[in-house]
């Protein structure tokens, strides 16, 4: 860590040097800001929806507008934010640094992947301008083949983003296999790398199927090919198989990077060797694999065969076991450590709390008999927000706070960050916990209004629960917003850290072997491995920032 002041943010200069960059860190940053932008749009749509749902009638938006809002909210959050942007941002920035590599295996492909993401995003913006789309993010046929909204634009966008996702996955796989610095064996890899590796495997195996599904859907609209359209002798349930063969594994594309982030944050901020390294590493791979066998649990009421119902229900439970191993290992990592309550750690702890709720409610849904009651009610909505927002997004925010000083060489205001972390926790539970109750009482999802249910009592009950959910969603939105603004505010000029900074005293290579922000070529000298990523029992690195 010599004193040259060159870093990837300032060298080289100029807008073109960013747009044509092959540097994984810069591509990662572009993903980061792209993702945050769409998170913001998706979040605004969510708040609008919450506002509309606060009262039973359709007084704020019309039915059609509401239907378009929830579809765009779901599709944007999933296809433009959590699937591409999180591995794209944190993964891109960190993977080569953690491997001691100069770059990912295929830098050009990496840039191409980002541009495909951009093109896909443009399609989505076009869809928003041209009046939206109302099929739900699941595009079930035959509704999606006859809807008059812009289904073509959306499917095209998803198709293109799918390729972006495939290229990222392919790139990461080659990188992990071939670009590790000498001496960095598989069991010395940081767990975040294992997580990205698992994610990438899912990305390249599942994503081609969504690509072909989208093609078939587009052809169905253009040519009426009839494969999924019952009017032409096709089978709509087959479409659901196609869709979920991708989209169930896709939920593990969303959560595995989050698992990786948590596996980094907890040992570092507890200054303790991670508990059960190999279990965590292998559970990543087994989750990735088992995730391919359970897609039919989204179709328990579709009329698929009883045999499939039983098979899918059975295998679904098995995802819970490796996941549980992770949860317990993270918890035990703190045992005999030195836990500091920094912002990343607060996010990680709230992840443990929220994801456990989300995951366990997944088990409720996996039980066929119970899922028949709960399917397509707000119980499912609450489940997936607990795992996606409470799991992935909270972990992502934690990771962002953890690696922010690394990526930018700036430190945010930690007190504000801590307050926001608590605000997110409270706001989140307040928003989505009531939705479990709504779902149990039968409130269906994708309902623009609920004023004519034939029972005043029921309407009043739903309205009260929806009302409190809406109230807390304001707190949630505000906390996330201030949290992100706090990060952005730290980027101002006057705020600078020493390039050698290691604020948490971490031992992974991106902290110990390069500057913050890193050198354009990552490492000034070939990195030499001196210790494992979690050897807090052998090595002390003084945190450069004390609270």
């Amino acid at each position, binding site marked *: 860590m010599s004193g040259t002041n060159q870093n990837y943010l300032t060298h080289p200069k100029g807008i073109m040097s960013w747009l044509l960059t092959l540097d994984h860190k810069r591509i990662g940053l572009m993903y980061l800001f792209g993702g945050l932008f769409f998170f913001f749009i998706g979040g605004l749509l969510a708040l609008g929806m919450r506002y509309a749902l606060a009262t039973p009638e359709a007084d704020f938006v019309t039915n059609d507008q509401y239907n378009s809002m929830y579809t765009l909210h779901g599709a944007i959050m999933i296809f433009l934010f959590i699937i591409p942007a999180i591995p794209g941002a944190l993964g891109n920035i960190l993977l080569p640094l953690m491997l001691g590599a100069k*770059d990912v*295996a295929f*830098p050009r492909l990496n840039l191409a992947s980002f541009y495909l993401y951009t093109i896909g995003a443009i399609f989505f913006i076009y869809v928003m301008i041209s009046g939206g789309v109302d099929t739900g993010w699941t595009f079930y046929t035959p509704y999606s083949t006859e809807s008059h909204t812009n289904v073509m634009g959306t499917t095209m966008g998803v198709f293109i983003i799918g390729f972006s996702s495939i290229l990222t996955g*392919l790139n990461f796989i080659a990188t992990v296999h071939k670009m590790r610095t000498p001496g960095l064996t598989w069991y010395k890899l940081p767990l975040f790398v294992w997580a990205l590796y698992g994610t990438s495997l899912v990305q390249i195996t599942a994503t081609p199927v969504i690509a072909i599904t989208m093609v078939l859907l587009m052809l169905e609209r253009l040519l009426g090919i*009839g494969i999924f359209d019952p009017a*032409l*002798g096709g089978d709509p349930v087959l479409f659901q198989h196609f869709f979920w063969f991708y989209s169930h594994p896709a939920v593990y594309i969303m959560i595995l990077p989050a698992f990786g982030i948590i596996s980094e944050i907890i040992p570092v901020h507890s200054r303790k060797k991670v508990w059960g390294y190999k279990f965590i590493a292998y559970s990543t791979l087994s989750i990735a694999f088992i995730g391919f066998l359970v897609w039919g649990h989204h179709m328990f009421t579709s009329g698929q065969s009883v045999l499939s119902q039983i098979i899918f229900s059975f295998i679904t439970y098995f995802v819970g076991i490796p996941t549980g191993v992770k949860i317990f290992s993270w918890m035990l990592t703190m045992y005999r450590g030195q836990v500091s309550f920094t912002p990343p750690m607060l996010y990680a702890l709230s992840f443990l709390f929220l994801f456990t709720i989300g995951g366990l409610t997944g088990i409720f849904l996996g039980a066929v008999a119970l899922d028949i009651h709960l399917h397509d009610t707000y119980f499912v909505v609450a489940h997936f927000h607990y795992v996606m927002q409470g799991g992935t997004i909270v972990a992502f925010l934690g990771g962002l706070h953890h690696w922010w000083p690394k990526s930018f060489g700036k430190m945010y205001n930690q007190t504000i960050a801590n307050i926001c972390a608590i605000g997110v926790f409270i706001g989140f539970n307040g928003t989505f916990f009531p939705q479990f109750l709504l779902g149990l009482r039968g409130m269906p999802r994708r309902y623009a209004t609920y004023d004519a249910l034939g029972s005043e009592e029921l309407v009043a009950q739903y309205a009260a629960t929806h009302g409190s959910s809406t109230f807390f969603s304001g707190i949630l939105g505000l906390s996330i917003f201030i949290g992100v603004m706090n990060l952005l505010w730290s980027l101002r000029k006057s705020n600078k850290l020493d390039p050698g900074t290691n604020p948490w005293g971490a031992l992974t290579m991106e902290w110990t072997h390069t500057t913050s922000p890193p050198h354009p*070529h990552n490492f000034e*000298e070939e990195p030499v491995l001196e210790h494992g990523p979690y050897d807090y029992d052998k090595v002390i690195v003084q945190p450069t920032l004390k609270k």
Partner: protein
Amino acid sequence: MSHDKSSPDHLYHHFYDVDQQYETSKLGMWAFILTEVLTFGGLFVAYTIYRAWHPDMFFNANLLLDVNKGLINTIVLIASSLTMALAIWAIQLNKRKLSLLMLFITFLCALGFLGIKYVEYEHKFHLGQLPGEYYSYMGPEVVQQIHDQEKIDSYIASNNIFFDKETNRLYTMNNPHIFFSIYFIMTGLHGLHVAIGMGLIAWLMVLTARGRLHAGYYTHMEAVGIFWHLVDLIWIFLFPLFYLIG
């Protein structure tokens, strides 16, 4: 840069040596092949399921395909696979001219393949053997014999054509339009791959002619080769599944 001075100019800066670069590219290529297999895989799933549901539809519609053209195309593709492999073999031995020739033959084979496909498609378009909603073919005999009730009956008996007495209209049984949807999408996607392959082979020819590829560095050719063999491999399945068995 930290490379020693001797590193060749085709080595990208982020690799340690040429071997790492070569191996990495190949691994990336194979990962890509996996995505290709699963893309086509989705269509194979559709094929399998509809075939299991409507075996008779597949049997009848299969008779409308021209085995000879399919067979010729199979032979053409296998030949092109051979020449592609030989192109790599030649470049490994630094026989640049030979390699170029082999690439050229491969390219011609691909062109021939697409030509034959074009003729096939053209014929089907003409007859109305189109995918989905646009399917309109009912068999040449039907159109001629239609006003002869007895013949209609015998035709119905033999050919799975349904004559609805109420509306007095003819329908084909068991939706052959879905067969044709699957046929056109699968062969069409395969054809698209052939066309992309042609572009890649043309690019290889340019690189080889310019001397950029040689025994010491032919990663591009190896990668395109893998792609091209995959195209062949998929056709190896499409041929019997569509043309031969019913």
